[in-house]
């Protein structure tokens, strides 16, 4: 293992799912540095990829083949024409949870530690939209984060804070976060 060049080990660690990848940080300093970076260096292992990345599903991985938990998603363009079909094989420890429905759309969320990713699917057209990337959330927020959906131009609302006075809104159309000052519950 010591003889294994960094680039090969990086490739291996990069193909792991998020959870095993985090566990691997404990293995040794070399592994940790590759996964989370050392000093000011950026991590060598791609960080976002481990959660959901199609090419990470390995053909020889019996464990995940056997669990056979996958979601099929379809992408549609504006005219309703199917442009792509995507199947997501999910780490069996990280199920997406259903957030709720709004305006006939179904909202799913995958919250993994300090990362959140969203999907919205339209059961009528079977179209799906996913958030552009995995959102990192800070330590303090991670525990208290409450997720919900609301009707605001088909946006996804993120409510946080004890009294829910602070509301951060994630707009699905633009993929941007914004803050609402007005308390929702009085």
């Amino acid at each position: 293992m010591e003889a294994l060049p960094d680039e090969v080990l990086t490739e291996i660690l990069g193909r792991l799912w998020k959870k095993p990848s985090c566990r691997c940080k404990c293995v040794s300093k070399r592994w940790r540095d590759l996964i989370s970076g050392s000093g000011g260096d950026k991590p060598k292992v791609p960080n976002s990829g481990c959660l959901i990345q199609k090419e990470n599903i390995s053909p020889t991985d019996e464990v995940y083949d056997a669990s056979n938990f996958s979601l099929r998603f379809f992408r549609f363009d504006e005219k309703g024409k199917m442009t792509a079909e995507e199947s997501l094989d999910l780490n069996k420890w990280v199920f997406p949870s259903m957030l709720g429905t709004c305006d006939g759309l179904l909202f799913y969320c995958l919250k993994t530690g300090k990362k959140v990713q969203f999907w919205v699917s339209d059961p009528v057209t079977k179209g799906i939209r996913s958030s552009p990337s995995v959102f990192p959330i800070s330590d303090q927020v991670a525990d208290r984060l409450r997720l919900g959906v609301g009707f605001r131009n088909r946006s996804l609302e993120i409510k946080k804070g004890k009294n829910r006075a602070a509301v951060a809104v994630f707009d699905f159309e633009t993929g941007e976060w914004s803050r609402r000052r007005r308390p929702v519950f009085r």
Partner: protein
Amino acid sequence: MSESTEKKMVRLRSSDGEVFEVEESVAKVAKTLQDMLEEDCADAVIPITCVRAPILTKVIDYCKDQVMISSSSSTTNNPNERTEQERKAWGQKFMEGVDSSTLCELLVASNFLNIEGLLNLGVDKMVSMIQGKYPQEIRDMFNVVNDFTPEEEEEIRNQNAWAFERDPYYKKRSSSK
């Protein structure tokens, strides 16, 4: 490929001195060897200093198979052509029974010789071996030295506590093996 042309042979020497004679087409599966052969040093025995004989045997097996597939792919009715599924099954079979130390050596060899397909197979196998394991199990399996102090390890563990939460599936799967 006509039978009349004599097949050019290449000799490879493993780190422990064993010499293997293979067809040039087989050796050329390895990009590193292909580059060397194109620079025309085919007469000499090519030393492969970081690869032991049993590993080299395995590597050559892989290369031979690749040649068999590609040489027959030009014919119309191809008995050797594989579907995606067969390819996966073959890869799985090829990697079956490979233990962790052999796997490491195989990865080093395929990286050195620049054989992308074999490297991929190895990486996938490695990933499947690591996937469900805890750090100590991984260390034991691959002989990795734990260079953390217990405090340091505890700290990282705490930072990534969610990754160590008990998985309902973990126990079930490990006991079934």
